């Protein structure tokens, strides 16, 4: 007599919990679908059509966009530029970042002020940063060329952004300047959590500065450095604004990376299908790094 109502009550409670659970997770699912799944599916869908951007009308192209891309020298050159830019700027970011973090970990005068100031480039908007650097690089009024001329190192102003390899080197340097504070923050946080006892014990055992750095600091930083490298690789690989504003991908296509190629295909050539194909390929490349990152994060 009493069993059925109790069972009913339990089922209804379960059902209610299920509904509540679904309701609670629904906003996340909706937002996730809207901002990630939809653009992703949309990009893949667009990449198999030949579409004129302003009207967004076009026809089925199958894998033509992909085969055209893979056969074009421009795509491979852009990919190579992308790799050079990412590797170059990331290396500099890591070197500067770790060095500055080690410096700021010491008891130096005005340490708090220095720690705040070092973050400045990272918080600066890319547009403002580029404007400042373009002025520094300017051939007629730029302080960089003037200083080098004053020091007697050069006779004429240097074309920093319009010729190779200067343009790529300048880009890599500005990128490193802009993003190295991220490395500083992460490394500094880790440095502060390394127990002092390890250094004391090593010192007692006769370890010098270099030995303490290579045997204690670096192994302790290893995990955080791997995560930084993976994250910054993903972010630098898809960098657009800094490169576009500084060189626009020039001279010719010497600094054109894949994100710039996407933009050029979509809005300069009005080929949204081709642009989507480049974007999809970019996504596949970044997926490799993301897989590594997720594995590392899980560990």
């Amino acid at each position: 007599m009493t069993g059925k109502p109790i069972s009913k009550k339990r089922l209804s409670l379960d059902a209610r919990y299920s509904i509540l659970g679904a309701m609670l997770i629904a906003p996340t699912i909706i937002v996730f679908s809207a901002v990630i799944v939809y653009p992703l599916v949309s990009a893949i869908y667009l990449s198999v059509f030949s579409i004129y951007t302003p009207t967004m009308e076009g026809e089925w192209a199958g894998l033509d966009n992909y085969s055209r891309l893979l056969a074009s020298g421009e795509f491979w050159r852009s990919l190579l530029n992308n790799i050079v830019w990412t590797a170059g700027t990331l290396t500099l970011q890591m070197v500067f970042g770790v060095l500055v973090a080690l410096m700021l970990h010491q008891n130096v005068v005005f340490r708090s002020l220095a720690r705040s100031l070092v973050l400045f480039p990272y918080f600066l908007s890319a547009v403002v940063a580029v404007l400042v650097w373009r002025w520094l690089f300017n051939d007629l009024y730029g302080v960089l060329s003037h200083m080098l001329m004053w020091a007697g190192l050069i006779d004429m102003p240097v074309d920093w952004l319009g010729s190779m390899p200067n343009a790529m080197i300048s880009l890599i340097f500005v990128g490193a300047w802009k993003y190295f504070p991220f490395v500083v923050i992460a490394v500094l946080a880790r440095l502060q959590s390394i127990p002092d006892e390890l250094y004391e014990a090593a010192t007692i055992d006769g370890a010098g500065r270099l030995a303490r750095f290579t045997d204690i600091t670096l192994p302790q930083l290893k995990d955080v450095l791997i995560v930084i490298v993976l994250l910054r690789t993903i972010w630098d690989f898809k960098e657009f604004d800094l490169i576009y504003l500084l060189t626009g991908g020039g001279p010719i296509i010497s600094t054109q990376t894949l994100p710039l190629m996407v933009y050029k295909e979509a809005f300069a050539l009005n080929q949204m299908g081709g642009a989507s194909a480049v974007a999809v390929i970019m996504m596949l490349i970044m997926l490799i790094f993301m897989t590594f990152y997720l594995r590392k994060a899980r560990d």
Partner: protein
Amino acid sequence: MNDKSNVHQARSCPGQLSRRSVLKSAVALTAAAALPFPKARASTTIRWWSTQSSPEQLAAYRYQIKTFEAAHPGVEVVFERTSDEGYATQLAAAFAGGNVPNIVTHLPSFAVADYWSAGLLLPFDDVIAEVGTDNFYEGANRIYEIEPGTHAAAGIGNTAANMLWMRTDRMEKAGIERLPATWDELRAACSKMQGRGIYGAPLPYAKNSMTTLVIIGFIHQAGGQILSPDLEVAIVSDEAVNALEFYRSMREFSPPGATNYSWGESLSAFVSGATATGLYAGRVLINVSKQNPRIAEHITCATYPTISADVPPWTFNDFPSVFIPADAADLDITKKFAAWLYRADGYIQQVNATPGHVLPVLKTIARHEAYRDNDIIRRYATEVERMSSAAVAGHNLGWETPHHRANVKAGAIINSGILAEMVQRVVLNDEKPRAVLANTAGRIEKIMKG
């Protein structure tokens, strides 16, 4: 008194707010803010995009907007800037996203042709009729008649974009007696005037619209063309080779950073006195007057030199336009606003904001006393006259010569950067002009067929 009694007192004390009442008020205020109150603001908003937005021009636009809003209560006009280098991408995104502005001004005619051919623009004949068809200069709107009998847009001005600007004081010092008329004369003049921190010419070598425009001009000034009158690709020619060779030969007279120059940098180089010659439209006049008055007495202009005296000058006229996207909202009031832009009081302010840069297309305005009563127009009457004549006879890639058909793919060719890239390959990479031209021809062909 303990803490609890304090809290209790605070809650019950008249004149003090309890936490609950503060929360209630916050919720009520949030809800009130979300309620659709009747709009105190305008019920119709017109979005106006333009590539021309110097402070003086913005002041003129504000006047036109203010008078229009006063005459049309309930209408608000919002001005939004775009740029010569950025409009193509911004408009492509706007058309694709269905979020188009109501009215767009000062875009070159070849952009209009591109959008019109894709069915993105509203016929503009009503506005032209409202302004007065006969009031436009003869042929001023011919370039917009892409399909016979229908205008895709109207001219809002003329611009002689590639005038040669010269410093007369430097010419004197260098012993140059007359303005260069041929490339050899120009090279010789630049060579004589260059030195002691002054460069000969601020020609651009970047991958942008200015480099594209300059090489189109050079090819025509060499007697060549990009496309034949029937719109067949005709860029592979001795004339185009000569044009590229000339462009390359001018590199030694340009500042090192010219490989990144666009309109702004090139203009600044001449106005600041860093170069002895310039290549620009009439904006030089107001910029020199305001930014470097020291040289204001020592500047003049002429049509850009050609390869020889046998080849006539070729001026690049952007044919700055005004058009209405077909998907724009509130089309009737937008048309009224488009016509309003030509009203004498506002239009004169607009063209005189940068005297000599955007030249009037209406006969009544060109004759108007208020237009002529301008310090710069009076002071540089000869230069303004030269620019006006050059602009009226001008062409662009959308309409290369009077014998050419309208090229609706001109915008796509220019925005692709193919022509600027061709210049870079020859000048910066030192590649052979003819091979680069052949490659460029193939790429243009693809766009023309696409």
